[in-house]
């Protein structure tokens, strides 16, 4: 079993958010902030804090609620719904985005902590009409079934290939093991990452 699946000690996020627990343990739905957030007049936003960051190459200035996660900021405030929330607990990789070049679980990072940083999501991969080689490869090699985990898989692979442009199968398995796929397209995900690495090497040379 890999690291990401071991039961963890109390996480920072859980600590921060572990108020108002219902019978479901730490069940809190902070993304409900959207309802307040979208229409400024409605919610008291005094305690919201302005941040600025770069998202998919664009400068964004936005006010965030202190407990808001990066995933919520992306999905609810910026309406970039490509990034998915699956476990909301840093266990599955469904929410993976690239933050300053590294893959992170966006459900597990406060929006505040992205202040001044650069975020890349699945929506930012295409160059105009052209798919990114990773997107091409996942499509051609059928590295998906239902596709819900796919944005996270692609972003994890993006960071992996940044770090290791020609990874071995073992390195891919290792590097992608923080991203769950219940459809278990794993063999084809691995093939897709290999194919993308080849495409990218070919293009840059």
């Amino acid at each position, binding site marked *: 079993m890999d690291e990401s699946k*071991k039961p963890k000690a109390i996480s920072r996020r859980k600590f921060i958010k572990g108020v108002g627990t219902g019978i479901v343990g730490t069940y809190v739905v902070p*993304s409900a902030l959207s309802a307040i957030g979208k229409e400024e007049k409605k919610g008291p936003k005094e305690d919201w804090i302005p941040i600025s960051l770069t998202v998919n190459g664009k400068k964004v200035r936005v006010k965030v609620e202190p407990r808001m996660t990066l995933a919520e900021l992306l999905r609810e405030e910026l309406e970039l719904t490509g990034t998915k929330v699956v476990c909301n*607990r840093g266990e599955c990789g469904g929410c993976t985005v690239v933050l300053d070049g590294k893959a992170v679980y966006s459900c597990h990072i406060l929006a505040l902590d992205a202040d001044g940083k650069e975020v890349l999501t699945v929506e930012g991969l295409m160059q105009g009409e052209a798919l990114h080689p990773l*997107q091409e490869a996942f499509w051609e090699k*059928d590295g*998906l079934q239902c596709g819900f985990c796919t944005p996270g898989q692609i972003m994890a692979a993006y960071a992996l290939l940044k770090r290791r442009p020609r990874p071995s199968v073992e390195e891919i398995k290792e590097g992608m093991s923080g991203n769950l796929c*219940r459809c278990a397209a794993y063999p*084809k995900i691995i093939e897709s990452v290999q194919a993308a690495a080849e495409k990218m090497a070919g293009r840059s040379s």
Partner: protein
Amino acid sequence: MKKSKFNIVGKPVIRQDGLEKVTGQAKFADDINYPNQLYGVMVRVPVAHAKIRSIDYSAIENHPALTTICDANDIPGAKKVGPIKQDQPIFCYQKIVTPGDVVAMLVGESEEELLRLRELVNVEYEPLPVLTDPRKALEPDAPLIHPELGSNLVIHHPLRKGDVEKGFAESDYILEQTYTTPFIEHAYIEPEAVIAIPREGNKGVHIVGSIQNPYTTRKVVAAVLGWPLAKVRIQQAELGGSFGGKDDIMNILSARAAVAALKTGRPVKIRYRREESIQESYKRHAYYMHYKVGFTREGKIKAMKIDIIADGGAYSSMTPFVTWRTVVQATGPYEIENVWTDVRGVYTNNPYAGAMRGFGSPQPIFAQESIMDEIAVQLGMTPDEIRRINGFRSGSITATGQKLEKHDVNVLTVLETAVRETDFARRWRENQQQTKKRLDLAALEEAAANPGPFILHKEDFLEPEEVLRKGIGLAVSFRGTSLGAEGVDAVAAYLSLQQDGSAYLLSGLAENGQGMRTTYSIIAAEVLGLRPEDIYYLDLDTGYVGDSGPTVASRATLMGGGATKVAAETLRQRLEKVLRRHWNLPETTNFVFADRTVYPENQPDRKIAFAELCNLAYWEGVNLATIGWYSGPKVHWDESVGQGPAYFTYVYGCQVAEVTVNLSTGEVYVERVVAVHDPGTVINLLGAQGQVYGGVTQGAGYGLWEEISVDQGFIRELNFDQYLIPTSKDIGEIVPIFVEGEERYGAWGAKSLGEPTLELTAAAIANAVRNATGRRFHHLPLNLEEILLGRKLYPTSKRGSV
């Protein structure tokens, strides 16, 4: 050779919905928002069994964050629903029967506010004794979960064939064993989400959601609202996995959202977080299985007596159908003269159980295939030998008295293919001979209890080869395709050709991420000589095409594929007629449709572009749209003795698992699974491979890690930190091999694959572990504790584990 007659069928075709999915543009239910939308948040009571005395909302009633509250009093129609028995309330009003139960829903603009408010709802209740052990459900003093039914029995399926007592008397050996399997969570990666939108005037309600079976959802919502079916429109959003799991739960969530939407006149969204999803959604049944088998010295099975209890949990859901498949298949793909089977589904206060990929087969396959290996070991045979002696052949009679005929009965073919591919018998025998030195647990425990001067000597250390043991194991199955005697089996497919040769396609079955759209597009493209990308698959909406029943039982390819082919052939005939007229060709002319062109079979040079032909037909006023209809042949069934032709055809599979067991940690690593399946004709090769990878991996999860354990009705594993599903690192290699047997039903004999791939893996792994360790494990999952200690460990509220 079979393949040569096709242009596209059986070739790798990239999926239709790939582009949206790799770009993040695909709209899953929670990605969709409507202006003015409200949220619904559930109110639950932390108790497994109780009588509701009163619900008091006075603390929150006037709170500005609350738009309204919905509970059972707001339901104009059916207060309870269910696919077979209507025993599940939309909102509980008499009793709570499991902790996932919901008594009310708060509706407002801010989910976060509502979550705070729900803590202030005061539900007064009277706790009742909790029933968690299904084996005690039928005892006379057991608490009744649904007192109005008079018993906790959901269903009893008996099967009586031959004379088991005579069979046992004729046997040289008798083996009796008990096996158990736990509740399993579907763990679809997308949690539930749905939005109900009230429509103008008298137009009813529109529902968009992560819905597996839109027609079933429509029935439930219409019943709850007391409306005609046609006033409820269900649209399936892109579905992030289902595996049988987005049926009942989504019907109920849709109904709650609809009630709230109509009450407030605004769109209402419900979306679950993982914890809530696991808490309320249904599971794969936990089974308790007792098998008694009599066999001769030569290895012939003479009699089998089976007693199975299935834990249905708090509501009946699909339990009667799930257990029905169990009774049909419980003896495995073996000819057995004398069979006596009882399968009982019962109510408890546990989470309710319903449909999940496999649908009543993974459990008995684990038991029955384990026992087959035990018989082999006892007789000094290899596992393949014992199966060769007893396996079905063409003309064999099943336990339900059905003669297997008119299709390739490929049990032994898939077995031989798998055995050859893996050099099975030789390796199995070799592993059986491994040094028998094992960790002396008793000595270790004693040493721990009497800590003296603890000095380790060289001989206390195990050599790696003593710690890491190799094992190989196999499992075989037969599986009835489609619904069988479970229900009406008919499917619609709508196909409409456009003037320029492009086409719309839509079937009444639902894409659950399995690649069904691509499969149907390939079928239509094959018939019409198009490319799959010429076919535009429409979003499923109950307003467009006839009720085709549920997308379950691996029926999508067989039934929906059949309907698509009928539709495509109908339009092809219309086009042929136009062309004959146009070119003045005799009635007898046959045409070839290929590469977006059409030509008479005997005049390959006289070509017309498909687009041009469509245009021609269009201007002649020919109807270029049609609905193809495919219905399965009738099957009959005698419920009292479990006899009859249960399904109209079957598929066959054999999987071989190769494992390494670490005897010092209890870890089982799956090195390789060879999966040989006969799904009939393979339509969509990439999709078929994907089904094998997915099924085998989920099957391995079932075998080794996954378990929903319940403490007084409460689920312990509420997220992926506790509920462990396989990652990319957990399984070595998976090798899919297809043996395409002849079949007369469906599109060119294409049957099913999704479920057969899952049902075998846990059993094959358990047999491989037996081969590696010399020990038989009777309780899934074979996790570290099970292998090391022979029992499960669960966290308790106190320190330590039990």
